[in-house]
Each structure stands twice: as structure tokens, then as C-alpha cells.
């Protein structure tokens, strides 16, 4: 029997219901691990022992009274620090929000509270979720539990390292171009981006509003489905929130038969640019699916060639206007230059001191893309590419139930490797970006060890609002892998130890 901290949330939930363990015991176990191991991984920006224990006591009372509001009641969770919490400073990884204590909870956090899930703490991220490595966090990078010299992916490297290092059983992330899926791939965990609008963005500190989506970070597919069921649902506080229910994801995740499943392999994401090990694991998974009775079809998505370019125009454009709110007036840092400065000089000095290099780069790029004379050529063309990508997906999903690709071109790289080459960093997201541009759901599941004996990920995409189809396929592929490996891939990870 595996140790308690390595058990999936679904099993912990059963143990809570049967009385084998209490939420206070579980929460203390993970708090102890988080406090001990965080100096190694820097997964958490803040650990909330007191409030987490209080919430666990409340969960135990509800379970004892037979009034547990959710399947996951009592299971502790970590939350990415770009979701507002009224009881914990929320920084979004930025210095400009160093002391920001939100006046309201994000809807996702409200739903976790309503489900009585203790919140262990807030996890690290690249500043305002801009990055693929957490190296752009104002509070130092998080480390990959598989190799502490390497990045845990980004922007959600705090959540991915917390879950893959078993500092938390499950976590919340946000995905604008791959910030849930890329970290999952390089840490051997599971990360899902639901259909745009399935989960409320209210209280998510906005990066690019037409691309951002909150989702689960876990160690298996069923846990991701269970967590999506907790956080999804219509929210009148988010005008882009979907009105229709997408069903119970946990039901879909319990269907693991891939026989007859039409699996599309995206031509443009199956060849060039992927490391040999990544490609080899991907081809093996295709064979595994064929052997299990799935039908493989090749799909052509020619516009994907322009996805990264379109993304790095749309994202900076939206980010530059979203981040205009950091004006040193209502919240956040205020830096006063000497003399008797005007408000404009205060803003400029504050934004100079409060924002890091990647945020400045993207704000200025976005300002350029939106500026008069360039708007049509850049932002306008990028929005048209977005239409072409949606059309490619439409055609692909006419031929296939799900599409697959490697999640990322490489395994985890070393710190500093891409820090001075923004374009190289941006190309990490080549496989994950199209889903955000089209608003469709995507999940990354472990796909075996590749270069340097490090994890690689398999991405599974489904048509918009077909999150259930995605979870069934992901659970099916996960089962084929686990049967082959004899255990979960995460169980191959080295033990974290403090010297």
C-alpha cells in the first residue's frame, strides 16, 4: 500500500468518508510536508497553517454529521497565487502586489470553501502568469521535484511542483497558453484546461481575458475530473461564463475503454521541433492506442503554423490593457519619485519598480500591436488567424473524437537555459497554444520518461464543451500506460529529502 501522501484525492476522499482518516490529520500531514519541503521546491509563496486547520475541522464536522457538500470535502488543496483569497495575500507572483489582501474571494476559491476543502496555501507562478518556467516570479523560481536543477514548467510551476512532490494532493492552476498543461508534462503530473467559460474567471487576476481558463492540477485523470466538477459551473459574476452544464466529468473519467475511439494525430504537431525522446514516447502511445482498438486518423491543421505568432500578439495586447489597472491609485505598490511628481510620473515610477522584465516586455509589445497604424496589420491579422485555427479544429473534430500531440517539445530544461531568449521560451507552448486560441479543452497526461530520464506529456484535445470526451480518452490512455508500467509514472519520481 502506498504511503498516505501519495494517494490520489479520490482515495483520500473515500478514507475520509469511511472514517479511516480525518481532514485535520490529512491537512496536517500535507502542511508538515509543505513546511519541510518548500525550502527545496519553493512551490508555495504562502502556507496557511491556521486557516487550513480551521477549514479541516469544519470539514470533519460536516463529514461526521453526514452533510459533506462534495465528494472532495476534507481533501486539502493548493491554489495558484493569481486567484484572490480574502484570508491570504495574493501577489500573482509580482512585486507590485506584494501586500495585496483582496476584498473578495475568487469564485473558484468560494467553490472550494463551499465544498469544505482546506486551502493549504498559495502557489508560485511567473509574474502575472507570463512565462513557462517560474523564473519570472518576483519571489524566485520553483524547482522540479524530479531534478531540482530544472524548471517545473510555467507559469503554474508552483502548483505542478507541489502536486508532483506530494506537498499537496491536488491544486488549482490557470492556463492561458499552456500554463497548466506544460507544467504537468514536465513534472509527470496531470493538468487540464477546461473549455473556455466552463470555470469562472471572477477573481482570477487577468492576463489575457479571451484566453485565460482555470483548471485542475493533479496526479491522475480521475482527480482532475473530480476537481473540475467542484470548480465548474455558471457564474453570473463572469459574463463569459458558459450557461450550459457540461455534465459530471468524474462519470466520464470512469469510462476507460478506447475501443472504437477516433484519435486524430495533428500532422503539424507530430514531426519537426520535438526532441527524439518525446517523439519516440509519442509514437509508442499511438501504437498502444492502436493495440487497444482505437482508430488513428491523421488530421491536417495548416494554420497552426501561425498559432504562436497570433498568440504573442493577442496575449500581449490583452495583457497590456488588463495590466493598466496597476496604476498606484486603488491598490498595489506606489513609488514616489523625488520632488513633487504628477500622478503620471508616480504611475511610471511604480510600474518601473513593480513589474519584472517579462511583464514589461509583453506590455510594450502589446502596446505596439494595438497602436494606431499597426493595429490592423498585427492585432487584426492575429484575430483572423484565430478564426483559421478554429476552422482547422472544426474540420479535425469532424474526423476524430479527440486529437493528440506531445504536450511540449522537450522535457524540463535547466534554469537559465532560455531566460535570455524570449522567443525560444515562447516556442515551448507551440502545442498548447492552439487550444486557448480556439477555447477548446485540453489535458496533459504522463507519457513516459524521455530525455535525461525526465517526464514527457501527452496532450489530448476535444471539441469545445466536450470536456467529458476528453476525460474519457485521457482516463483510457492513462489506464493503458499504468498497466504497461505497473504503476503511475509519478511513482517513478525520486523522493524529496531535506539534508
Amino acid at each position, binding site marked *: 500500500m502506498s504511503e498516505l501522501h501519495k494517494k490520489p484525492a479520490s482515495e483520500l476522499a473515500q478514507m475520509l468518508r469511511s472514517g479511516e482518516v480525518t481532514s485535520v490529520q490529512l491537512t496536517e500531514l500535507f502542511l508538515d510536508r509543505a513546511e519541510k519541503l518548500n525550502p527545496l521546491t519553493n512551490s508555495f509563496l504562502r502556507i496557511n497553517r491556521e486557516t487550513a486547520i480551521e477549514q479541516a475541522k469544519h470539514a470533519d464536522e460536516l463529514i461526521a454529521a453526514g452533510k459533506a457538500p462534495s465528494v472532495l470535502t476534507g481533501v486539502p488543496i493548493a491554489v495558484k497565487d493569481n486567484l484572490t483569497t480574502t484570508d491570504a495575500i495574493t501577489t500573482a507572483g509580482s512585486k507590485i502586489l506584494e501586500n*495585496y*489582501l483582496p*476584498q473578495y474571494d475568487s469564485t473558484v476559491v468560494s467553490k472550494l470553501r463551499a465544498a469544505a476543502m482546506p486551502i493549504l496555501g498559495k502557489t508560485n507562478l511567473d509574474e502575472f502568469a507570463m512565462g513557462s518556467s517560474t523564473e519570472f516570479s518576483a519571489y524566485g523560481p520553483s524547482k522540479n521535484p524530479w531534478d531540482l536543477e530544472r524548471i517545473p514548467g510555467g507559469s503554474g510551476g508552483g502548483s505542478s511542483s507541489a502536486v508532483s512532490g506530494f506537498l499537496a494532493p491536488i491544486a488549482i492552476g490557470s492556463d492561458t497558453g499552456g500554463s497548466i498543461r506544460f507544467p504537468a508534462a514536465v513534472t509527470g503530473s496531470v493538468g487540464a484546461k477546461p*473549455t*473556455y*467559460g466552463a470555470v469562472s474567471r471572477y477573481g482570477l487576476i487577468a492576463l489575457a481575458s479571451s*484566453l485565460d481558463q482555470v483548471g485542475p492540477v493533479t496526479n491522475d485523470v480521475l482527480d482532475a475530473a473530480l476537481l473540475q466538477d467542484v470548480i465548474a459551473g455558471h457564474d453570473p459574476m463572469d*459574463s*463569459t461564463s*458558459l450557461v450550459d452544464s457540461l455534465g459530471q466529468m468524474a462519470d466520464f473519467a470512469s469510462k476507460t475503454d478506447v475501443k472504437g475511439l477516433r484519435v486524430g494525430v495533428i500532422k503539424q504537431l507530430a514531426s519537426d521541433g520535438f526532441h527524439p525522446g518525446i517523439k519516440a514516447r509519442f509514437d509508442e502511445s499511438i501504437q498502444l492506442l492502436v493495440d487497444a482498438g482505437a482508430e488513428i486518423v491523421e488530421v491536417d491543421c495548416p494554420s497552426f*503554423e*501561425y498559432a504562436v*505568432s*497570433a498568440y*504573442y*500578439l493577442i496575449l500581449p495586447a490583452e495583457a*497590456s490593457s488588463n495590466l*493598466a489597472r496597476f*496604476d*498606484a*491609485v*486603488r*491598490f*498595489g*505598490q*506606489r513609488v*514616489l519619485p523625488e520632488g*513633487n511628481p*504628477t500622478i503620471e*510620473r*508616480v*504611475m*511610471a*515610477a511604480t*510600474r*518601473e519598480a513593480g513589474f519584472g522584465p517579462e511583464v*514589461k*516586455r509583453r*506590455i*510594450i509589445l502589446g*502596446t*505596439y500591436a494595438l*497602436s494606431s497604424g499597426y493595429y490592423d*496589420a*498585427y492585432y487584426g*491579422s*492575429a*484575430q*483572423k*488567424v*484565430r*478564426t*483559421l485555427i*478554429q476552422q482547422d479544429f472544426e474540420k479535425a473534430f469532424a474526423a476524430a473524437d479527440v486529437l493528440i500531440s506531445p504536450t511540449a517539445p522537450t522535457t524540463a530544461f535547466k534554469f537559465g537555459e532560455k531566460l535570455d531568449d*524570449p*522567443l525560444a521560451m*515562447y516556442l515551448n507552448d507551440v502545442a498548447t497554444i492552439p487550444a*486557448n*486560441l480556439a*477555447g477548446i479543452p485540453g489535458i496533459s497526461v504522463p507519457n513516459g520518461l524521455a530525455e535525461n530520464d525526465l517526464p514527457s506529456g501527452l496532450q489530448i484535445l476535444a471539441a469545445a464543451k466536450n470536456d467529458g470526451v476528453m476525460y474519457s480518452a485521457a482516463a483510457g490512455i492513462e489506464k493503458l500506460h499504468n498497466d504497461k508500467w505497473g504503476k503511475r509514472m509519478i511513482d517513478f519520481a525520486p523522493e524529496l529529502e531535506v539534508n
Partner: protein
Amino acid sequence: MSEITPETVRHLASLARILVTDEEVEKLAKELDVIVESVATVKGAVSADTPATSHPIPMSNVYREDVVKPSLSQQEALSNAPDQADGKFKVNAILDEE
């Protein structure tokens, strides 16, 4: 010819209200020039009659009921203010004295 010159960066930074040093201007101009050259490929990918997409899942006219609901108190709204006076946000002068 590079599209992003140090002068462009200075102008954009002032539009974005970010103070930049000479050193940053030089660095940003080089980096942004490479990025802009790369993303400019979108221009050749589309035609005049390709429709633009601004929102991934089509939606229109999302309204809420026009009913009064509890909101933040003045004190709560000001709780993160860098400076305040008389229950209001306090800021520096908007106009130069000259």
C-alpha cells in the same frame, strides 16, 4: 531594417506609463525587434475577407438583472489604497504646476 528602434520603445513605454532606463531601451529594442519580426508572419497568413475572432465561444448581450446587491463598504474599498483622505483615494497632482 529594424522595425523597432530605441525611439519606438521610448514612445511605447511612455504610452504604457513605464519608466525605462537607456540600458533597458537598448535591450528591449533588440528583443522586441526579433519578436515582432517573428510574429509578423500572421500578416501573410490571412486575407482581407477572413473574419476576425475576438472571443473563442460566441456570446452576445450578457446582461444581469438590474437589482441592488450588497457591495463593498467604503472602508473595504479603501483597504488596499496606497494613500487615502476623507474616505477617498488620494493621489498626486494630475497637472504640472508650470
